[in-house]
């Protein structure tokens, strides 16, 4: 289908973009790469009166490695981040998880911040941000910026803490901790489809941080003590997320995936190889 009619704006500054969002409120939508939003517009699931394209804002296009995090500006595409030299060493979880985002062709236009802003509960980037305890940086029309922790930012299906006149200018992924191991697994109908369950893990010597996507209404991250047998903790986690039946999978199957994949992920082993098959970015 074709989108319903809208006014198109291409502001040249952050301030101007935020002013437009303030002025048009609920009737305005931001577009960056458009790899989620355009599909929604084409199917007329959303019919905004105003589309504000941030492609014309020059100073959003950067990836910066800082003291304790990797900062990714709102203009950066997923393909660009995947090709960032040293990504696997700086934020290993991203290097593992990002090849699961859509396809080569959608990563070429889809932005990192756009996926965070869209807040699909089964998307990989929100899961990574939540698991690593990253931050979202937002700026409003007065030029004031604020930082929000991932766990506070994601508030439900396609729902975030972003206020009406705010623009996400940057997301911050914490750099790899020495000695920690990072792992990622996903089950989808086909590679590139929405995840039925996606799991991300940060494994330290005495604890495991496990992030779960595709089950609750937002990515959920929990800390588990590192026992010999994590079965009980995983079972409790699986039951705590309010899994529901849908067209792709039953709630029982999702819980089973959390238990089984969680166990595999924490144990480590050859399954990581499967994830590495498509690492060309």
């Amino acid at each position, binding site marked *: 289908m074709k989108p319903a009619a809208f*006014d198109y*704006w*291409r502001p040249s500054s952050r301030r101007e973009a935020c002013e437009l969002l303030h002025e048009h409120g609920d009737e305005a939508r931001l577009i960056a790469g458009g790899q989620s939003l355009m599909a929604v517009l084409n199917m007329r699931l959303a019919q905004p009166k105003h589309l504000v394209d941030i492609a014309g804002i020059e100073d959003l296009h950067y990836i910066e490695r800082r003291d304790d995090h990797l900062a990714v500006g709102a203009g950066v595409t997923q393909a660009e981040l995947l090709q960032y030299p040293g990504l696997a060493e700086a934020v290993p979880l991203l290097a593992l998880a990002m090849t699961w985002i859509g396809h080569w*062709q*959608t990563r070429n*236009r889809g932005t990192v911040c756009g996926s965070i802003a869209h807040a699909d509960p089964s998307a990989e980037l929100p899961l990574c941000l939540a698991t690593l305890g990253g931050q979202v940086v937002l700026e409003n029309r007065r030029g004031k910026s604020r930082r929000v922790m991932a766990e506070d930012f994601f508030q439900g299906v396609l729902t975030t803490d972003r206020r009406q006149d705010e623009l996400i200018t940057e997301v911050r992924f914490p750099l790899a901790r020495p000695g920690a191991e990072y792992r990622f697994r996903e089950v989808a109908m086909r590679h590139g489809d929405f995840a039925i369950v996606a799991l991300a893990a940060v494994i330290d010597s005495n604890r495991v941080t496990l992030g779960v996507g595709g089950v609750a209404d937002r990515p959920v991250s929990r800390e588990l003590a590192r026992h010999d047998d994590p079965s009980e903790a995983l079972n409790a986690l699986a039951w705590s997320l309010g899994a529901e039946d849908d067209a792709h999978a039953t709630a029982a199957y999702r819980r089973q995936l959390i238990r089984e994949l969680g166990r595999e992920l924490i144990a480590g082993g050859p399954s990581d190889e499967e994830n590495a*098959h498509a690492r060309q970015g």
Partner: protein
Amino acid sequence: MHARADQRIRVTLTLNSRERSGYAEPRTQLCDFLRHELGATGTHVGCEHGVCGACTVRVDGRASRSCLMLAVQAEGRRLDTVESLAGEEGLSDLQQAFRRHHALQCGFCTAGILMSCEEFLERVADPSEAQVRDMLSGHLCRCTGYTGMVQAVLDVARTRREATVPDSQQENNDV
């Protein structure tokens, strides 16, 4: 910049190395602009929500779905479509490989697949089969299957690699 919803605005871009312009409403998808306004009907339109990949074109070199992009977003950009591949001397090496390996039947999806393959081959000179399959997973073909396409891409990658071996190295190989 602001364009009213009912306004047709001028969009100028470089299509297959030629500057072209036409008019588009803000809501006009890039694929429709190419086909209906510029007459470049080589690009096909399938699902219109980014799943099938038939409408894939290269935007500033990057393979992208032209149904998930607005014509106004292509202003000033370099676009390459399937029409750019064949030269005066006939089909390109990739197109010939597709024919040789029976990588198409009805051809509807092929226009997009070729554009993805072109970018892929530029970025990955020596791909594994798994990498080719991952790249092709962004496309749906409902008649041929993907085996012929995978063979064609690997074949072209090999041929192009051999063609870029420096002369000195070739001599060494002969010895």
